[in-house]
């Protein structure tokens, strides 16, 4: 599958939510833990070999599960490949928890759910749709209803 690699590499240089050197182990059998600079930018987790400018790889953090593995480690699994785990080793329990919390919040879908919750709640409490003042109340991405109905003009 093609993807816009240059732009993604450029994204990896943007200010990050969180960045640290962690132990990282890939999902394949025989993969071992290696030190990597791990950087969370929007809904991507980039990992760099130490002292390299370009990331070795990127993980899109949608449709994934983050789990505590032990006191210092967490794992990321993607829902379509539940047996394959990416393992990350931290330097402290606190750091481990911070990473877990950040990664959960890093998904676009997670933000969307929050938005829908806030929108619904504000509307319930005030009787007003908070998105109306910005003229974005009809945006499909902000809709409360489940599922998307295809509009005739989509075809």
């Amino acid at each position, binding site marked *: 599958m093609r*993807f816009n690699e240059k732009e993604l590499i450029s994204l990896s240089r943007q200010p990050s939510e969180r960045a640290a050197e962690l132990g990282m182990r890939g999902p394949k059998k025989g993969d071992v833990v290696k030190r990597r600079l791990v950087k969370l930018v929007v*809904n991507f987790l980039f990992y760099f070999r130490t002292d390299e400018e370009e990331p070795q790889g*990127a993980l899109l953090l949608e449709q994934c*599960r983050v789990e505590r593995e032990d006191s210092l480690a967490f794992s990321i699994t993607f*829902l*379509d490949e539940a047996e394959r785990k990416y393992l990350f080793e931290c330097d402290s329990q606190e750091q481990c928890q911070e990473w877990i919390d950040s990664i*959960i*919040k890093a998904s*676009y879908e997670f933000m969307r759910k929050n938005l829908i919750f806030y929108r619904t709640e504000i509307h319930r409490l005030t009787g007003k749709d908070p998105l109306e003042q910005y003229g974005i109340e009809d945006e499909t991405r902000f809709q409360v209803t489940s599922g998307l109905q295809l509009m005739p003009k989509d*075809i």
Partner: protein
Amino acid sequence: MKLNERSVAHYATCDSPPDKTGFLFKKGERNTAYHRRWLILKGNMLFYFEERESREPIGVIVLEGCTVELCESAEEFAFAIKFDCAKARVYKMAAENQAAMESWVKALSRASFDYMRLVVRELERQLEEIQEGAAGLQGRSKSSKKAGGVARSKSGASFSASHVPSTQVTGAALAQGSAHARSLQEEVQLPSGTSKENGVAWSKPSALVNGGASLESPVSPGTGCFSKLHDWYGKEVAELRVEWLQKHSSLSLFNLCLMIFLPNLSLTVI
């Protein structure tokens, strides 16, 4: 650079609802012909398929940091997705009619994670303000409850009921709202050892609440306040509109309106 491509492709076709789908003509990577593709926009990812029925996408455009531009081109209803990095590709697209073009331009220019985050933070702030207001009311009604409580021990429940001040009723309704939110916040603090999944069923309105914790990410300067940012975008677009008008004597009124509330929208003649 590696990417978890299989999982990214899975995101395209999994059952979370897309933000927009439809056919567009996409200019080829190597050859300059336009190819008709089926497009699925989800979050900040634009997937393109050979056919609507195709199981896997040919490719994906990560839209973070892009700008969407209307462009004059031999192709009708054309627009371009551009990026600000060195040697970035320009993705030229063409829609089948004016309405489709406008709809896509609008959807794509609001597709970034940053934009979604901004809107979420704004609503979060608004909700906090409302809850703080409610808490204030609740505090007042609590103290009046205490006074009523002392009396209640003498004359029973009916006494305090008849003395309920009106603020207590509205305060209770708002407080209930904030208590509800608070209990959801508690739900989010799952014990360590359990897993947390994102991307679960879309239709549940009882979302995982952010728990009030603010994201630490540095937002680009000047964008801390959503309404200011919105005004700023409006101003920037208004300036572009003036430039555009100077270059082109006629422009449909609809296009003018279109330009007003779109972040990342700029106008160029290619």
